[in-house]
């Protein structure tokens, strides 16, 4: 084994671990902080908050993003809200309960110590955001309002209309801009990461392409932080932004960073269904809609009547029927899987038959249309713009879509990967959500990592490591740049017949069919061989117009698709070697008699961490055993 998985979980009772650890972390004195430079890749909630808070501490930060400004990172699209254990509603919430819910919601495949810390700092996040001027929803007394969200029985979700991600991101962005103005953050926009530079075993820099000029640049630093988001776009159709990609994380994996649980993907239950072949992305409808909307399908198969013509007694409100205690608020994985079951039983609705209804009729009758409009007006408008149907007049049609990836680069308690100096934050890492993420937890994790964890642990890294002085003339930079340029030349010289999107769509179909909501051995093996075949075709038949020294969107896409064609295979392999069901990973071979996910704790209470061995060689599978001392392992039940 070439890398050792030491999770570095601090000693002591779980409540004290983080406090003890912070005290033990080495400090860098204020006048020395300015001698360190940190590269931060990505400007979403994790990267933006990390860049801002490290700059505030006095480090020199170089921040990189793919869009034209940091404010556009895809965190901006998160609608519903952010969890915190404030217990402002006096409804029995606590740090312990948030911790407990998150471990259980993750189906016991996350690391207890990390999750506890997440719950602990959740309250600080809300304080920080309010101080930044984030306009959270308030009640008539002027105090913060909360709502409940899937998988929780308390109201702990803070929100800003249906635009919570936007407002939190703008808070982090504004903090960044404050530091840019002070000269503590150098901003590099419209840059794509082509490689991570590792010198003497430590991450010391990156190679990037300027997406305007095409110039290949070298950047050196004392540590590198990846906050580059998830890899849901491997499915082509997902709720991710068009430019979301696995590039930075994948390059790190190929340089020796372990990739953990790549098959743990979240299929979000409430998205607008696919309409046709030219569709480029899917749109999420916030899960908060399930607070008032009731999910149903016609009770008998192949019922093609208009929904408003189907009488009550011929409707099957299946979530309420199967899960009487959680009803429509069951966690995402459970809701998604049940929607698929209904469609598989030919009870799907709409033109394609691949959708279920989310109905607000009863909520409108109970609370009045103005109240519903106040809560969900912007979502209803968005739905109507896309589908040309009004949710006030007929039920929404929804269907699950790829939304979030719980897997990612393996990190220890300090958020450091298996490459010293390479830290990974937010969705790009794997640590906090296990096999299923609860609603309103992604924003919490991104900001926890960036505002409240990395500022401490990065100091500890600098305080405990002696870093040799290096600059961009180091031979490792030469090597990395040469390889990056060679790959670009290769793309341009294939001169085949098919576009990058064409390959991407084919890959997406393989992934959705075999590595989607239900997985089984045969299909996963088919996926591996089909992806290998597709990858070979890609490298012989790709067509890229134009040149390297200009804005060239097709060239950008080619690089991303090349990475996805390798990642897809690893995901299938990971799913294949985990023959249990847990959270979003559902193996048909492993179900309870009621068709719920059946875990195998004896053999699989671990994170699978993959080590790269070569593109066409089998990667090595390592394990980080998970122990549950505070939340007893039980079969999840939402009935």
């Amino acid at each position, binding site marked *: 084994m070439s890398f050792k998985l030491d999770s570095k979980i601090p000693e002591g009772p779980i409540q004290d671990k983080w406090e003890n650890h912070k005290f033990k972390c080495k400090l860098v004195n204020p006048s020395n902080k300015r001698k360190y430079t940190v590269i931060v890749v990505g400007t979403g909630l994790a990267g933006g908050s990390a860049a801002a808070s490290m700059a505030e501490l006095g480090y020199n930060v170089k921040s990189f993003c793919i869009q034209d400004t940091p404010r556009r990172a895809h965190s901006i699209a998160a609608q519903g809200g952010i969890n915190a254990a404030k217990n402002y509603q006096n409804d029995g919430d606590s740090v312990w309960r948030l911790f407990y819910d998150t471990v259980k919601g993750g189906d016991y495949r996350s690391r207890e110590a990390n999750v506890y810390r997440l719950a602990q700092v959740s309250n600080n996040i809300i304080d920080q955001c309010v101080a930044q*001027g984030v306009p959270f929803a308030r009640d008539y007394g002027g105090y913060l309002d909360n709502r409940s969200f899937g998988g929780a029985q308390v109201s702990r979700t803070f929100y800003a209309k249906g635009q919570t991600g936007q407002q939190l991101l703008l808070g982090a962005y504004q903090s960044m801009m404050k530091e840019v103005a002070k000269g503590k953050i150098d901003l590099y926009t419209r840059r794509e990461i082509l490689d991570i530079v590792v010198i003497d075993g430590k991450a010391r820099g990156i190679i990037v392409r300027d997406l305007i000029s095409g110039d290949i640049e070298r950047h050196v630093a004392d540590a590198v932080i990846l906050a580059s988001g998830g890899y849901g776009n491997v499915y082509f159709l997902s709720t991710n932004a068009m430019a979301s990609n696995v590039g930075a994380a994948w390059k790190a994996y190929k340089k020796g960073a372990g990739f953990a649980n790549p098959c743990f993907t979240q299929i979000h239950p409430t998205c607008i269904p696919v309409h046709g072949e030219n569709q480029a992305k899917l749109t999420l409808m916030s899960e908060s809609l399930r607070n008032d909307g009731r999910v149903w399908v016609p009770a008998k198969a192949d019922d093609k009547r208009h929904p408003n013509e189907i009488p009550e007694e011929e409707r099957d409100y299946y979530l309420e029927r199967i899960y009487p205690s959680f009803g429509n608020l069951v966690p995402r994985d459970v809701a998604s899987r049940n929607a698929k079951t209904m469609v598989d039983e030919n009870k799907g609705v709409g033109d394609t038959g691949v959708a279920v209804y989310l109905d607000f009729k009863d909520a409108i009758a109970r609370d009045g249309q103005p109240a519903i409009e106040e809560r969900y007006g912007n979502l209803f408008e968005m739905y109507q713009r896309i589908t*040309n149907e009004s949710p006030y007049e007929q039920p929404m049609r929804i269907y699950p879509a790829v939304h979030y990836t719980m897997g990612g680069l393996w990190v220890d308690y300090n958020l450091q990967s298996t490459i010293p100096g390479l830290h990974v934050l937010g969705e790009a890492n794997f640590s906090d959500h296990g096999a299923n993420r609860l609603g309103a937890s992604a924003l919490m994790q991104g900001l926890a990592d960036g505002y409240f964890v990395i500022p401490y642990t990065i100091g500890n890294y600098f305080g405990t490591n002696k870093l040799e002085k290096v600059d961009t003339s180091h031979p490792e930079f030469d090597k990395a740049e040469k390889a990056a340029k060679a790959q670009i030349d290769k793309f341009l010289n294939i001169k085949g017949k098919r576009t990058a999107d064409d390959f991407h769509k084919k890959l997406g179909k393989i992934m959705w069919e075999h590595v989607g909501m239900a997985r089984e051995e045969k299909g996963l093996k088919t996926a591996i061989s089909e992806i290998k075949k597709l990858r070979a075709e890609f490298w012989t038949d790709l067509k890229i117009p134009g040149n390297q020294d200009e804005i060239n969107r097709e060239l950008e896409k080619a690089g991303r698709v090349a990475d996805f064609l390798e990642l897809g295979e690893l995901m299938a392999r990971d799913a294949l070697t985990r023959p249990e069901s847990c959270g979003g990973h559902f193996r048909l071979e492993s179900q309870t008699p009621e068709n719920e996910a059946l875990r195998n704790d004896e053999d699989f209470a671990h994170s699978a961490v993959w080590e790269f061995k070569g593109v066409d060689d089998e990667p090595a599978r390592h394990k980080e055993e998970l122990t549950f001392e505070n939340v007893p392992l039980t079969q999840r039940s939402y009935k």
Partner: protein
Amino acid sequence: MANKEKDITVHLKLWRQKNRKDKGQFDEHTLSGVSTGSSFLEMLDQLNEQLIIEDKAPFAFDHDCREGICGMCSLMINGQAHGPEKATTTCQLHMRSFEDQDTIVIEPWRSSAFPVLKDCVVDRSAFDKVIQAGGFTSVNVGNAQDANAIPIAKENADLAMDAAACIGCGACVASCPNASAMLFTSAKISQLALLPQGKVEAEKRAAKMVEEMDELGFGNCSNHAECEASCPKEINLSNIARMNREFFKSKTFSRKD
């Protein structure tokens, strides 16, 4: 059920410009088999797939989230920023807003503060500079008190949220005959002016942001209100009035630097 979608043919006049220095010109293309259920950008994806196969250069435009929230997409469509639908970004515009055989003219945002980089891709980094001049509260992580320590009247919180909904797309600038960035700038000034957390630095914020805006080459406001009409998030013109009051206070009552 949804109105049945159909396939239409559209004639496109696209602004093509190789780079910042190129003069640029319109190119014409006809695209058939466009589903009225497709989004406007999916129609352009379809065009690009066709152009690549025909060995022609694909058309460059900005886009990312395709959910109407990131603010990356732009495009003047038949002379209207983000096209004909009210309160809709280009990525949320659908082809059912067009008829079979329509001619659609597509141009970039035009403003000297937003130089064209290629085709319809423009440089909007000037907006970041406006925010850097003061569009924040100077609160370092670790300082914050309990989030409920200061109650905020719901009405003010809601108005602040309405202003904060700005996505920074630049449609306001592109639509304004003066290429003014006042709606954008005022949205941030307003949000922070309405909240107690923003009051601490209010004395200088408006003056600093407005001065930066002027320096970057954005024009002045002469009450055309095109900005409000084109804003995909319906940011209200009253924010400019609030900004002007803040600016006046800034200039009149501020202690000298």
